[in-house]
């Protein structure tokens, strides 16, 4: 019963995406995943901002080899659970459809919704439930063969994927990231160095 309810919820969600006007969706029409609505910004022009070609004064970097072929994943990314920071309470959802998913009542697993006719083509999503909560929604099929539907997809149908962050134990060569204290770190370091130079 719960599995069916989840499929219906996912169908309703994909229906909401497919039937939207080209452009921005109202926040209350969007299903909420993990308590946060997926909101897209208004983008100037239909095709989004133009990415310029930057020519630095020095010699430009060579282009990386763009091998986009499918490779077998060999990196081991561990799934050891990490202590979570305190969660903000989920806001009251405008639609009942996905509320149950946030209460941890679902059975863990990966669920495929059926391919649904969305007028511009077929939409099919796949939902992942972990720890009784909806943690991921993947779009498996979306209308792409008609000009109209491509334009709508460009602005409305999100392909963004969510996951809870997990500590990784593999080796790395460098680390990218700001910490919540990085600004204070920089300021403190600057002043310390200024003192060191005095």
């Amino acid at each position, binding site marked *: 019963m719960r599995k069916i309810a989840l499929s219906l919820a996912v169908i309703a969600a994909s229906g909401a995406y497919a039937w939207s006007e080209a452009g921005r969706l109202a926040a209350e029409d969007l299903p909420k995943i993990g308590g946060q609505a997926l909101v897209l910004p208004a*983008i*100037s022009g239909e095709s989004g901002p133009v990415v310029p070609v930057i020519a630095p004064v020095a010699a430009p970097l*060579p282009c990386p080899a763009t091998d986009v072929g499918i490779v077998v994943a060999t990196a081991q990314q561990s799934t050891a659970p990490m202590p979570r920071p305190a969660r903000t309470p989920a806001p009251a959802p405008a639609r009942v459809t996905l509320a149950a998913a946030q209460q941890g009542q679902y059975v863990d697993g990966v669920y495929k919704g059926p391919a649904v006719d969305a007028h511009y083509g077929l939409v099919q999503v796949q939902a992942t439930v972990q720890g009784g909560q909806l943690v991921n929604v993947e779009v498996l099929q979306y209308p792409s063969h008609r000009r109209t539907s491509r334009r709508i997809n460009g602005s409305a149908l999100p392909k963004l994927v969510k996951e809870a962050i997990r500590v990784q134990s593999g080796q790395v060569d460098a680390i990218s990231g700001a910490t919540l204290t990085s600004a204070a770190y920089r300021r403190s370091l600057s002043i310390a160095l200024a003192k060191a130079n005095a």
Partner: protein
Amino acid sequence: MRETRIQMGMPVTIEVVGTEDAAPAQAVFGYFDAVDRRFSTYKSDSEISAINAGRVRPEAYSLAMQEVFALAEQTRRETDGFFDIRRPDGTLDPSGLVKGWAIQNAAALLIERGVENFFIDAGGDIQSAGRNSDGIDWRVGIRNPFDAEEIVKIVFPLGHGVATSGSYVRGDHIYDPHAPHEVLETIVSLTVIGPNVLEADRFATAAFAMGQAGIAFIEHLPGFEAYAIDRAGIATRTSGFDRFTRPT
């Protein structure tokens, strides 16, 4: 060889594979020193401080400063104003762009000297080329914004540039120029992978200022991928991001 120094107020690490010759790295460290002398808003005698104090006429700006200002203006237009080097008090702070720009130039310096396998990491913005000393693709960890000792994602940039913008205390250079008094809290870390570190840096800064909408902005930007982490520890990635989570 590999060396770390504190420059521009942050740790700078350079690794050049296959040699103990420190000369190429020295050249890069020297270049970053010069960049800091010109662009540091913490130095009262830097060019940017002189400009902000009204002591320099626009026609006397250095070429490097003009170039950075032009890039800043271009980025401002492309991001609908979410990237803006003008602070609320009217002064200019180009540090959101200088870091990536400087690393980009430094990487070009190394390539000019014939270095093929290296990485430059300045404050978490990274440009790499070739492979590491074990002959495998360079691996970059994304720091856990809630615990600096931990990594929550491993990426293989494959020659692309990586930049992470994070939650800054209000008053520093990352805020929403459209609402400068609002504290941006929802997204605490946004990592952008772009064609090179300059591109990654300028769009990471802008996209972070957009808050929750930033990841969708990157999704619609061809040639860029991103990984955003919110204050509840939930990460959102762009649809092509997994291209960088496996080695070749």
